């Protein structure tokens, strides 16, 4: 506090000096000066050196880029020379409707998004409930469960390719103990998406656990006690009292999980050595890169990118609105 007061005093001194300085150099009539002064002193102008440069940088690379992408998706650009912006149309979007691969990719994207998010939330919640009590080494357990989160998709893809190996992969050896398999996990169109989701849950359930642990810790202890006094058993207490209070954590965790699921491209790229995943694992992201960088159908690729953007907007817009209404923004 003492240091702070000293700071305030020095600030005040500097300000007084500054004022003298300004009086000496200001030109113009008193009225002009005050309008200009008021504008220059307004908080929006005063704070703009802080937020404007990052805003411009982000605005250019994110929002201007999306606008440019939208424009490209209306052209017939196929990679030679400059795009022809004079003849814009919706033909790429029409072509999408007739593209059977597009339907498969959209379906797979939704299966991946929803399957991954839901399973991750459940596993993460269970982990958090297990660890949210007096446990020896609880920090070590937490650290180990979160460890895969520190790795990149490219790295985890290497581990899981090996786990799913048809000949001697651990997964097949394990289910072999129960007389099942072997399955070609990554080669079978019916199994591949489930196998990918399982691996991604391995990587990200620790993240969900951390979010839920933080939320559980913020629930006051007496709520557990009150529930117990009422004679509720453990399971009931969790179901009726604790879980309902985890709603905000669930919302924010799912938003981030969806974000990770949209990046699953990296995982698929590394698992299948390129942007041509086995049948059954093609998602909008892989299809987009394949059309653009693989087949030079740049305009068509851009229109798929816009689809993907719309999907993520559909997830994020309600979240942002909700946060705004709750005053969290």
């Amino acid at each position: 506090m003492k240091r702070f007061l000293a700071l305030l005093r020095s600030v005040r001194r500097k300000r007084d000096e500054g004022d003298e300085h300004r009086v000496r150099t200001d030109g113009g009539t008193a009225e002009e000066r005050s309008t200009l002064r008021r504008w220059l002193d307004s908080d929006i102008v005063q704070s703009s050196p802080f937020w404007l440069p990052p805003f411009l940088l982000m605005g250019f690379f994110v929002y201007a880029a999306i606008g440019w992408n939208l424009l490209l998706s209306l052209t017939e650009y196929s990679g030679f020379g400059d795009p022809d912006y004079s003849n814009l149309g919706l033909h790429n979007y029409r072509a999408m409707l007739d593209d059977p691969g597009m339907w498969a990719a959209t379906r797979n994207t939704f299966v991946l998004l929803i399957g991954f998010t839901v399973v991750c939330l459940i596993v993460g919640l269970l982990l958090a409930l297990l660890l949210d009590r007096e446990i020896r080494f609880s920090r070590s357990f937490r650290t180990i469960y979160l460890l895969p989160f520190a790795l990149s998709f490219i790295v985890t893809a290497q581990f899981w390719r090996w786990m799913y190996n048809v000949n001697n992969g651990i997964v097949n050896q394990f289910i072999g103990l129960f007389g099942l398999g072997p399955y070609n996990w990554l080669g079978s169109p019916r199994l591949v998406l489930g196998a990918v989701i399982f691996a991604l849950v391995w990587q990200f359930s620790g993240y969900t656990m951390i979010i839920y642990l933080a939320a559980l810790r913020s629930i006051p202890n007496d709520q557990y006690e009150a529930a117990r006094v009422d004679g509720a058993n453990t399971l009931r207490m969790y179901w009726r009292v604790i879980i309902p209070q985890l709603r905000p954590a669930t919302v924010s965790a799912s938003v981030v999980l969806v974000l990770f699921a949209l990046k699953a491209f990296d995982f698929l790229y590394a698992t299948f050595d390129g942007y041509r995943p086995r049948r059954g694992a093609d998602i909008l992201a892989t299809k987009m890169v394949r059309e653009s960088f693989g087949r030079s159908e740049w305009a068509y690729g851009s229109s798929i990118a816009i689809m993907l953007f719309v999907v993520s907007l559909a997830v994020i817009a309600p979240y942002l609105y909700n946060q705004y209404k709750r005053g969290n923004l």
Partner: protein
Amino acid sequence: MSEKTVTTEQAASTEHETGGISIGHVGLYATLIGLVGFYLLPIESGLVTSIKTPTALQETFPFLPPLSASGVTVEKWQVAFEYLAPGMVNSVLFTIPSTILCAILGSMAAYGLTLVNWRGQIAVLALFIAGIFVPYQAVIVPLFQFWSQYMQLSARLSFLWGLPLLERHHATILELIITHTAYGVPIVTLLFRSQYKTMSGEMIEAARLDGASVWRVYRRIVLPLSIPMFAVVFIFQFTQIWNEFLFSLTIIGSVNNPAASATLILSGLGQSLEGTDYPLRMAGAFITALPTLLVYVLFADKFAEGVQT
């Protein structure tokens, strides 16, 4: 059977009071340790695979270490390191500057949008936050065009490439630095904002009323208080940018580019017509993951903190 369930339930509900060893406790720890196995098995399997000779690879289960010393080899690690070393250097060259830039710009943006109040702030802030959720696919074609056709940094900066330590492919590194910074700013802004929102408004209000400029409040009050958050952001962004792949694929393009990042090289490592060289890939995976694993182990708590917010 039903008797057993009752005991477990009772044990679970009374464990806080007794603190002794019960069936519930044993079950709990067995589950926790089983889960440790589940989360470590793929990593452990990768590690033992990377040091096996081809014969040991045939003879042993994928999760078991080589049976004898003759089955151990570090050859794959050496080969992987040779391939990855330039990529590791490139990754460091773009990860560290963009991490630092992200942290500085994000903290400034969060301050300008949180602790200084003005109308329309929410709209700008919403654009920042929505920027976190833009899938990279939605921008890679324009990005690719912007850097390769319109900017052509490598030609524009040709006067630099004669200088010592600078090489032509550093233009690509510079492109990656700028791109990663632009995409890191939104999330970092949100991280700093979450802290600045809880900061005592009174202190800042008092300083402002006493005439301290916006800049002065930032430098003298806000910045010193946000040093712990800077640590969190450094750790978080370093991991994110180091692990990123799609921008590398788009901007660098080919594994053979001298600017290729570690993740890009790893994605094509040990791939041939005969199949995949798994031991080589595993060794490569560990080398690539080393920096982030190190950060994770050394700063486990800060890392978790960064994930939470």
